[in-house]
């Protein structure tokens, strides 16, 4: 199953795109997504340990289940203000 993940700031710059598609099994969680992203994009491996993920505009726990119609985003540590 394919999941689109939005990328921002440093993560976007490392990957060179603002969206990546990650293939995960049905019922996959945020924790599974983190592992898959680190494996498929080696340059992201260090950063990915420090990011949060948002599902439908809310921060998600590691055990949050992903659904293909959710809006998923990778949120590196924020620095607005």
């Amino acid at each position, binding site marked *: 199953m394919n999941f689109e993940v939005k990328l*921002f700031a*440093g993560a976007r710059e490392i990957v060179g795109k603002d969206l990546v598609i990650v293939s995960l099994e049905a019922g996959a969680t945020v924790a599974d997504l983190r592992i898959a992203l680190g494996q498929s994009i080696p340059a992201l491996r260090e950063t990915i340990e420090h990011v949060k993920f948002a599902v439908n505009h809310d921060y998600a726990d590691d055990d949050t289940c992903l659904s293909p119609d959710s809006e998923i985003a990778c949120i590196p*540590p924020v*620095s607005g203000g």
Partner: protein
Amino acid sequence: MPRLTFEPIDSACLLTEVQSARAGAVVLFLGTTREYTDGRRTVSLEYDCYRDMAQQKLEQLQAEACQKWSLVHCAIVHRLGDVDLGEVSVAVAVSAGHREAAFAAGKWLIDTIKEVVPIWKKENWHDGTSEWVHPGISE
């Protein structure tokens, strides 16, 4: 309604928005682009943002502050894109019956915005390098 904007922030306009005969106190916070950070010289900042989520988070924080401190009015604006030295990147304005509530709400809002709202800053250093600022991730 909090605003995310590529235009310069009009602080005077924010003050007008929150002033009220129901309020005895107004607190305005402005975050401005500092030239030197730990001895390194900045030429400009650039802000990236996850707009839908940032808008939603700002609305949640504004509603929470309004309720917790019984604010009369609250206005929040965050700048996006390129911000020059000395310019305002974020403005938080609140009005309340008394000053204790206004200071507490203003402080909490900017502290919490910097903690949870998906906005990121890129430092364009004077030496020609640049970097996205991600607290906790070392270079």
